[in-house]
Structures are given as structure tokens and as C-alpha cells.
């Protein structure tokens, strides 16, 4: 048992750190450190820089052109990117659909889709949730009917994150109504330029349109876009979920945001207020404890000696912490978090923000935005059901 990283791991971290510092555009990291809005171009610019280096698919095995890093290396990469103020990698392509294509797609699909994902050229979206299928995802109704060498897709997806930018979407669709709901689902890749697709952004409480509704009206999809076998899509989707373990805790970003919280608390004069400062101290302990939990999972993955089935705990705790730091930042600003001025949340705004500190402009919006974290990806109540099963059976 040893807390320290090995010399090789430290050297790896230094290599990543040096590269990220040299290649992450400052105008992007400035926005991230200030929690200002990122445009599609900001996000894709960083994706392409990573893609060119071969690190956008940083979790990929070498066989598919990835760096072949182990769990600890992946974690160190994520940490260096987060602390440097890199935008989060939009996960739908490189982190979510690519592993499914690698595991269950055929050679033709792999050759066709993976290069565009690895380079960051093609923007992917996720088509899982539906208006009637939230936590109960398997109840989804969007139909895909096989007609010759095509599927005809009809239905509606929703909460499609950044779907307004999407060029391709991977969908769970119903291909059978027989048997259990899970057994009639297929995994289909759909070109979002196909006739019959309508995307409508949904304005959220933070004023942004981060998610969308996507309608499918007799959309023709070539049958060759089916991943694996018909009616096996649920299994593939579960594989995708199990692929995401420690990343969901987002502890590296939490460490960066804790630094920002302290800056805000100092600027707003509450750093020396014991009552407020203790709340930051509690959060600091929460973050260190979460980081230790993440490191335990990584260590278990690295050695393969023991498995730690605590993905549910990581999701619950990580999301609670994300909510907490945005809440404390807003509370630190106090009355000066009340003005809700959209232009002031963008980089480069030259107006006068009430109270004079434009850093406070996005705090309420950030707080509102983070309410999603305990709802998405399996709500925290669903996660508690899963966790309780590991204890009680």
C-alpha cells in the first residue's frame, strides 16, 4: 500500500502537463477558469488539437489508434486537462459511442466511423432519453422498422445534450415489442442530416440551450448502420455505461473549481468569515475523500486484484459536490449573484457589472445548470437503489 505515484507515472504526468500547457489556447482556458460560456468552436477547437495528437480518444486501445493508457494514466491525463482549464471533452463520440463501435461494430463500421471520432471532425450526439423514458430508459418507444435494407425510424428523443451541433446520433430504438422491454431494443447510428429529423433546442433554467428535443419522422436509416445484432442494443448500452467509472465523479474538475471558490470567497470578503470558511473546509474534505475513493478504484483496476463495485457511489458523491461548489460560489457573491445579465456571462464583455466584479456574472447560471447532475446518468435516487442492492441484496 502506497499513496505516491510511481516515478514512471510522475514522468507521464509531467509529459502531459507540458504538452497541455503548450497546446491549450489561452483564450479557451481563460473562459473555463471563469466559467464563461464556451462556443461550439471553442469545444471543437480543443477536440481537434487533442485529435491531432491522438489523445481525443485517450481511453482507446492502441489497436484502434488510441494511446493504450492504463486506468492511472487516463486519470492523470484527465487531471492535467482539468487543472489547466481545458474544456471537458464532449464525450458522446470518443468516450461513449466509440467503445461500443470497437466492441460490437463490424470492421466496416469501425473503419468508417472511428477516424472521424478520433480526429474530432465529426460531432456525435446521444439519443437515449425520451419524453416518457427517463430513469426507466428501457420503456423507450422510438420505433425502427426494418424495410428491405433500411430501417424506418419514428419517434422522439429528448435531453439530447448539445444535439444542435450534432452531425451523427447514436440511438436506442425499439425493434421489437415482444418479451421484456430490454430485449426489443437496438443500437442504431443515424446521420442527423437525414430527411425527417427535426432538432429543437430546449431553453433551461440557466438561460442556455444545452439540450434538445430530436424528432424522427419516417427517417430512413441504412441497415448497415445497425451496431451488432438487432434487439441486443440494451446489452451494448450497458457496456457503454460500465465503461465509464471514475470519470463520472469528475473529481479533477472539482479540485479546479475549489480553487475558484476560494478566489471568489477572498474577493467577496467571506474568506475570513469563519461561518463561511468552514463550509469551504467541509467541501475541501469532501473533495479529498472523493479523490481517495477514485484512487482506490484506479488502484484496483491497475492491479486487477480486487474489484470495487462503487460506480454508484462515485456518481452520487461527485454530483453532490458539483452542486455544492456552485452553490457556495453563488452564496459567496451574495447579493451580487442576483443580476442575471447574459452578455456579462460571455468572455470579453465590456459593460459594468453590478458590484463591479464581472467574475460574479455566471455564478447563478452555473448553480442552476448543475441541478442536472443529480438527475442525469441515472438519478441519484436510482443510484441509491443500486448501491443498496450491493449491501442488502
Amino acid at each position, binding site marked *: 500500500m502506497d499513496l505516491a*505515484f510511481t516515478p514512471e507515472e510522475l514522468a507521464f504526468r509531467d509529459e502531459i502537463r507540458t504538452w497541455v500547457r503548450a497546446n491549450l489556447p489561452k483564450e479557451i482556458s481563460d473562459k473555463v477558469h471563469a466559467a464563461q460560456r464556451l462556443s461550439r468552436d471553442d469545444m471543437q477547437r480543443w477536440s481537434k488539437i487533442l485529435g491531432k495528437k491522438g489523445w481525443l480518444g485517450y481511453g482507446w486501445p492502441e489497436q484502434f489508434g488510441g494511446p493504450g493508457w492504463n486506468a492511472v494514466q487516463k486519470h492523470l491525463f484527465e487531471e492535467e486537462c482539468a487543472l489547466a482549464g481545458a474544456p471537458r471533452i464532449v464525450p458522446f463520440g470518443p468516450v461513449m459511442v466509440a467503445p461500443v463501435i470497437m466492441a460490437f461494430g463490424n470492421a466496416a463500421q469501425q473503419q468508417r466511423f472511428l477516424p472521424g471520432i478520433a480526429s474530432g471532425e465529426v460531432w456525435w450526439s446521444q439519443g437515449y432519453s425520451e419524453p416518457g423514458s427517463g430513469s426507466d430508459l428501457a420503456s423507450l418507444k422510438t420505433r425502427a422498422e426494418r424495410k428491405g435494407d433500411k430501417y424506418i425510424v419514428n419517434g422522439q428523443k429528448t435531453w439530447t445534450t448539445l444535439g444542435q451541433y450534432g452531425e451523427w446520433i447514436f440511438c436506442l430504438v425499439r425493434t421489437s415489442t415482444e418479451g421484456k422491454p430490454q430485449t426489443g431494443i437496438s443500437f442504431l447510428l443515424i446521420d442527423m442530416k437525414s430527411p425527417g429529423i427535426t432538432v429543437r433546442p430546449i431553453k433551461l433554467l440557466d438561460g442556455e440551450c444545452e439540450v434538445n428535443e430530436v424528432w424522427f419522422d419516417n427517417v430512413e436509416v441504412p441497415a448497415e448502420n445497425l451496431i451488432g445484432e438487432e434487439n441486443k442494443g440494451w446489452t451494448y448500452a450497458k457496456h457503454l455505461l460500465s465503461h465509464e467509472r471514475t470519470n463520472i465523479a469528475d473529481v479533477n474538475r472539482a479540485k479546479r473549481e475549489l480553487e475558484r471558490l476560494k478566489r471568489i470567497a477572498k474577493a467577496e470578503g467571506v474568506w475570513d468569515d469563519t461561518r463561511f470558511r468552514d463550509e469551504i*473546509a467541509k467541501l475541501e474534505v469532501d473533495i479529498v475523500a472523493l479523490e481517495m475513493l477514485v484512487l482506490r478504484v484506479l488502484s484496483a483496476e491497475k492491479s486487477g486484484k480486487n474489484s470495487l463495485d462503487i460506480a454508484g457511489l462515485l456518481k*452520487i458523491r461527485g454530483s453532490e459536490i458539483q452542486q455544492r461548489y456552485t452553490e457556495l460560489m453563488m452564496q459567496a457573491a451574495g447579493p451580487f449573484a442576483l443580476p442575471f445579465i447574459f452578455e456579462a456571462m460571455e468572455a470579453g464583455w465590456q459593460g459594468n457589472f453590478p458590484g463591479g466584479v464581472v467574475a460574479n456574472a455566471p455564478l447563478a447560471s452555473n448553480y442552476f445548470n448543475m441541478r442536472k447532475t443529480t438527475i442525469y446518468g441515472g438519478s441519484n435516487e436510482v443510484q441509491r437503489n443500486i448501491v443498496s442492492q450491493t*449491501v442488502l441484496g
Partner: protein
Amino acid sequence: MDFDFSEDQEQLRDAVRKWVDKGYDFERRRAIVNAGGFDRAAYTELAELGLAGLYVSEDHGGLGMGPVEAMVVMEELGRGIVLEPLAQTLIASAVLQTHAPADLQSSWLPRIAGGEALVVLAHQERGARHHLNRCKAEAKEAGGQWTVSGSKSIVPVGDQADAFIVPALAGGQMALFLMERGAAGVKAEGYLTQDGARAAEVSFANSPAQLITRNGQTALEEAADIGSACVCAEGVGVMDKTLAITAEYMNTRKQFNVPIASFQALRHRVADMKMQLELARSMSYYASLKIKAPEAERRQALARARYQLGNAMRFVGQSAVQLHGGIGVTDEYIVSHYFKKLTQLEMTFGDTLHHLGEVSARMQDTAGVFA
């Protein structure tokens, strides 16, 4: 970075667990509580397993092991809510080994390792609360012989231990002394604590003692941090068993014709207990792995760990009683004893609010496991 236990560490765990399961069941524990909260015979059995010499170097007849082995042992003793104060032995042997002059080491460490001498820390004073720098006991030197006067509270097995490690002011500076219980002017009055263990009010009047170190503040902080790491590990063991007992009960107890484990409101509380347990286990690892870190880093880490553990122990203990219902508040059933042990641990070597204050005061611009 590696959180696997070695084969030797797993064997150590198995040996202690076996002793707890076979040699220290609930009935024996209850008998020990009824007889005053401490059983020298049980302590001797721990010593026979080598545990009293866990920290003592091999030169002095011990096992020469480190904080991870100590953590493993304390977890297992926690699972059995063992009353005998092995944590005190770990503290005393570490303090003596690091700070005492060679002759003091060679006269005491072999006896500590063998279980013949039980040495405990006697630092708590009425006016100090959790602050380690507040001390009224005074030491005087005359003709090469030190004497100490003062009184200490809640000294673990204070009326039965063989000697004390005593902080006292020597010329205004805190120093640590080793004092035998049999020394002239020592009085000890024993009683039970919340968890059924034994403690005593101890007073000294010009009692002869031997100087361990003049660097008393530093040494006492080290002692308290080792004690805190023991609290963390022991707490993890207690919580682990508490959760197991609770889960078993919930799957057996039926209401409305179904096991109460089927009710979602109760299941979610269990999920929250599991969360607290795993966060606590993580921070217990962190505490033990930071014990040898430079002082500022060590103190910060231990305060963080104790804040986490304090909240976890309170939540898990209270929840276990609640989930059991009426049987949970009886003395007859085992879970209330686990709850009381957790309650006492939270207030040992600083309570949760105290440690929060330490974390708060020590915050830097950046924070994480490695800083």
C-alpha cells in the same frame, strides 16, 4: 499508488480476525464491561499475537511494522469492539521509539512488546478540551531527578496501566515524561466510559518521572495523530460490522409480511451508510499513509480524515439504531454497543468540530490528496 494489501498484511488481518471471532465474542465482552471495562488477560492475548510489539523495532523484541499494519489490526479490533486499548500501546511505543533516550527505550520497549508493561498517554486536562498546547501540569528537576505535579482526566485504563506518558511544563515548555503508576504521589480513580471501556482520573503530586523529550509539543502532536489514525481505522472496522449487522437484521425482520429490507426509504438510508463507510475507509487509508509525512502535511491530513470519519461514524451509528427500531435501543442487543463505540470514537483525540476548525485554518489555495 497502490491500495492493495500485501500477503503478510492479509495474514495479519486474518490472525486478528480469528482471535476476535473466537476469543472475544459478545458475551466475553459483556463480562469484561461488567467487571470494570478492562481485562488484562485479554490484553495479554493480544500481546501473545505480537500486536503489543507491532510498532516496536525488532531490536527491542517487537515486529517493527508500520502504519498500514497498525491500520489493519485496528480495523479488526473495531469489528469486535474490543475494549483493551491497543491504540494506546501503539502510541506509547511510537513516542518512546522516536523521542526517548536509549536507556529508557531499552528498559521499556521490550516489556511493552511482550505485554508485561502497559503504557498509556495521560494528556487530557480539564481546561484543554481538544487543544494539545494547553497544559497545567508542571515538572521540576532537582539533582537530576524529575518530579511532576498535576492532574489528568479520562486516562485510558488509568488505574490499571503500568505507566503513563505525561505532558508537563518544564520551565514553561511542554515536555513529555514517563511516569510509573506505582510512583510516589500518584492517585488514580477508575470508571467506565460510554463504550464500556475503562478510564481514570489520575493525579500526581511531586511524583518521580523520567524525561522522554523536551520537545513535548511536537511529540504530543505526533502521538495524537497516531491516535487519530487509530480512531479512523478502528472506526472503519466498527462501521463495517455495524452495517453488516444492520443488513442481516433488515433481511430477517419482517413487517407487513415482508422483510424490512424491501422498503425503499430504508434501502436509501443503507445506501447512504455504505457511502459514508467507503468515504471513511478511503480517508482512513489516507490518514495512515500520511502518518510519516512532514508535520504540516500530516496534521492537515489527519484533521481532514477525522472530520470525514466523525461525520461517518455519527451517521452510521445513528442510522443503524434507527433501522433496527426498538431492538436498536436495548442494551441486550449488540447494535447499541456498536453505536456507543462510534459515539466515543468521534470524541477521542479531538471531535469533529475541532478537526473542522483545523482543516479550515490550514486551507491553502489548492487542495487534494497530494497537497
